[in-house]
């Protein structure tokens, strides 16, 4: 109903004019956006000057050095892991050596006691034999 009333107030020509005006503004907006995009593409395509080329060279060198540093970092990490494992292994070997030393000392003491017992038994046997 409102639309029909509006239609009666506003003539067809005015309606088409309004549509044209809106279309004109939309087209101008699209043209403006297209112009900006074309300018951006033009800027991208422009050949670089010597200073920019030098900066790019520096950037590439820095990237290369960064890669080298990463490789060194990885190498250091591997060596650290190896060192930790070796330290652990050395600790275990030291423990084993200490245990073996203790066992050796104990065995020597036992041998000494057995030798003394044997000597005592021999002396006792000699004295018993001489007494007969």
């Amino acid at each position, binding site marked *: 109903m409102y639309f029909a009333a509006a239609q009666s107030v506003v003539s067809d020509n005015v309606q088409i004019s309004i*549509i*044209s*005006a809106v*279309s004109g503004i939309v*087209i*101008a907006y699209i043209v403006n956006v297209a*112009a900006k995009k074309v300018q951006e593409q033009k800027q991208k395509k422009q050949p670089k000057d010597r200073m920019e080329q030098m900066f790019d060279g520096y950037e590439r060198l820095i990237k290369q050095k960064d890669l080298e540093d990463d490789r060194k970092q990885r190498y250091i990490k591997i060596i650290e892991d190896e060192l930790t494992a070796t330290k652990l292994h050395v600790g275990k070997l030291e423990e084993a050596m200490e245990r073996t030393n203790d066992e050796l000392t104990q065995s020597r003491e036992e041998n000494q006691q057995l030798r003394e017992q044997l000597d005592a038994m021999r002396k006792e046997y000699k004295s018993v034999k001489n007494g007969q």
Partner: protein
Amino acid sequence: MTTYSELAKARPTLKQVSPMSHWFVTIMGVFNILLGFTLMFGIDKNRLSASLIIVNEFSSYTFWGIVFILIGIVKLYALFSNNWWLSRKSLILGVSIKAMWSVALIFRIFISPGTVFITLCWLCIAALQMCCYIFFMPPNIGSFNQRREDR
């Protein structure tokens, strides 16, 4: 001489940076003024068999004539004062109004056939202006100077 005019003189002209844009803006400025005067004084409304749609009870031939004359004057003034920003704005305003007229003329073809030729001519002018704005018009003096400094 004011600082603004000194700065305007120090800038490169549009003709030096983009000769095609310079000549296009000049031609369109003159064309708009001539078109404006034609719309205001050169049309015998009694001899028109059908309305132009975009010219209705709200907007008369005189109204559009003044609009086109003003746009033409602004275009030529922007070139004279070496104001790239104003050149760009006047050109995009022209694109907007020409697109507006183009759409109305296309409607006019369907409502009352017989104006295809005029519509085609008008579309060509609008397309030329759009292409000039998109491909040949330098962005603005600020970004131009920045690019020159970067180099």
